[in-house]
């Protein structure tokens, strides 16, 4: 299929317009296959992506670009029970998931 998503990169532009991600500790809730994650993670201190869909996380692990492999961590988790200590993140992104 010839599907193209967000050819104008508006999602990335607006994300950066709304928040400074540079050197921040970021949690992305609903990271799915990492489509959005790969677009910003390289400037963060580190990024944790969580999702309930194990198949999507499997794809994300395979597709993870080499330049962010050391700073992106993926986990299977429910947004109502996040397996993290309190005050661990500077920024949380609810990506298509509220």
């Amino acid at each position, binding site marked *: *299929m*010839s*599907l*193209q*998503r*967000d*050819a*104008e990169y*508006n*999602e990335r*532009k*607006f*994300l950066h317009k*709304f*928040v400074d991600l540079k050197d921040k500790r970021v*949690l992305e*809730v609903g990271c799915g296959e990492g489509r*959005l994650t790969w677009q910003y993670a390289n400037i963060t201190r580190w990024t944790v992506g969580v999702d309930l869909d194990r198949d999507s996380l499997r794809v994300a692990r395979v597709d993870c670009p080499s330049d962010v492999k050391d700073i992106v961590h993926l986990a299977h988790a429910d*947004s*109502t*029970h*996040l397996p*993290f*200590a*309190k*005050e*661990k*993140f*500077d*920024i*949380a*992104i*609810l*990506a*298509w*998931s*509220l």
Partner: protein
Amino acid sequence: MVHALTEIRRVLVSDGILIDLRPLADHWPVEVVSLREVKRTGRVQDLPEQTNGDAASNESIQEAERRGLFKREQEELFSFTYSWDTPSEMEEFVKEEWQDFFDLDDETRRATRAAWAVADADSRVRVRMSMWIARCRKQASTTENET
């Protein structure tokens, strides 16, 4: 969904930021586009599953604000496009991926196929979604007990 916002608030630092990013159903336009022109051929039909979901999400954010969990600082709508080489690829995608949330009526299907058939060779079929983004800041005190 307020439970999720409460949990996200817990793992955010003091003054931390929550970005809420999601599509909002709004009878998104369907277009046939080429370098030379954009022709609107109809609109996506919003199904109750999507509109009810949007309403519930909006209510969750408002409830989180009422409880003093977060304060909304900035919000905006922007376009997020899906495009395909042909109308049939669009129809297949809508049927497989959006079936519970959106639909295409017969008139939009017909008009899109007709416009694409006579359009320039570089033409694609596009749905222009409305995307919502909001920045919310973690608030120090809440009306609930801290967890």
